[in-house]
């Protein structure tokens, strides 16, 4: 695949990489490093993409594989900041929404690496067959495990 085609593919699917980085790294700097590592690994593996699966399935597989096996740099302090001042009159509803999203991501990050991968794929509407192909387990196994993970997340979010 030509570099331009590859970049168009990654550009169109970069949300997948972004979310995987959010789930598997704790700091912005680590997420940025992981994002770059995933793009690099995708570029190295792109010739093995034969087109018999959806490009997004291929991207998920490489991104998850990289997120779990790539070396992490030493521990970095968790500093979160934004480049905008908070709106004083921020709608209470919006604040609650942001809080709920943060709670959801925090609950997913508490899961084991394998469970994080399964639930991310399920939340992005991949079929059990596609999830099974990416992970390398049967559809039945996927169904059982997803059901268990959903319960775990619900429990975390309600406690």
């Amino acid at each position, binding site marked *: 695949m030509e570099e331009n085609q590859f970049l168009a593919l990654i550009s169109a699917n970069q949300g997948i990489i972004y979310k995987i980085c959010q789930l598997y790294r704790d700091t912005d700097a680590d997420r940025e490093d992981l994002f770059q590592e995933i793009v*690099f690994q995708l570029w190295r593996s792109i010739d093995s993409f034969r087109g018999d699966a959806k490009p997004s399935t291929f991207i998920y597989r490489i991104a998850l594989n990289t997120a779990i096996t790539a070396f992490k740099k030493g521990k970095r302090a968790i500093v979160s900041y934004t480049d905008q001042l908070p709106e004083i009159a921020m709608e209470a509803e919006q604040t609650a929404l942001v809080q709920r999203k943060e709670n959801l991501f925090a609950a997913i990050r508490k899961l084991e690496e394998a469970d994080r991968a399964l639930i991310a794929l399920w939340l992005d509407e991949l079929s059990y067959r596609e999830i099974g192909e990416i992970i390398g387990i049967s559809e039945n196994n996927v169904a059982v495990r997803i059901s268990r993970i959903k319960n775990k997340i619900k429990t975390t979010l309600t406690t």
Partner: protein
Amino acid sequence: MEIEEIKNLWASQPIEKKSKEVLAEMLKIKSHPVLKKIKTQLLLEMIAWLILLAVYYTMFDGEKRPWFINFVFVLGLLQAVTYNLSGYLAARNLIQGDNLSISFINYLRQLKKFRSSAIGSRLLLMTGLLLFFSYGHELNSKRIIAMLSISSIFILQLWLLYQQWTKRIGKLEAISKSFGAG
């Protein structure tokens, strides 16, 4: 929180989009966060070993030592250079299979091989250096203590290296099992 709400929250997560120019930059090793550092470190190490190889025969009296001492010394240095290079090339290949389970099994197998070869490579290098620089010197108590101290440091280094590899392999093994692989 209900499942539908969880799905909606997940789908509405804002994404920080990167331009194609930024993505293109990420394909280069010189801007890679980890490989760039490994490459520089390995290059410096390899240059140091190669310089030592080039000058040891005349500067460190290689000509006055028997051939087998020279052989172990040169072999130790050459294999260290080769091992570093192969380690760098392997560090670029994280994807080892058509699904995550297979990829982890293969990657773990590779890491275990690397653990053995890392220890073997370091051991050979240290043996070569110790043999070469201690050969021909009369052994008195001071020299024996010095050699024992150096050997202890080498052994400690080997143990730390082994522990480092074992920790990483153990962690990946646990993850691999939780995926349902091997």
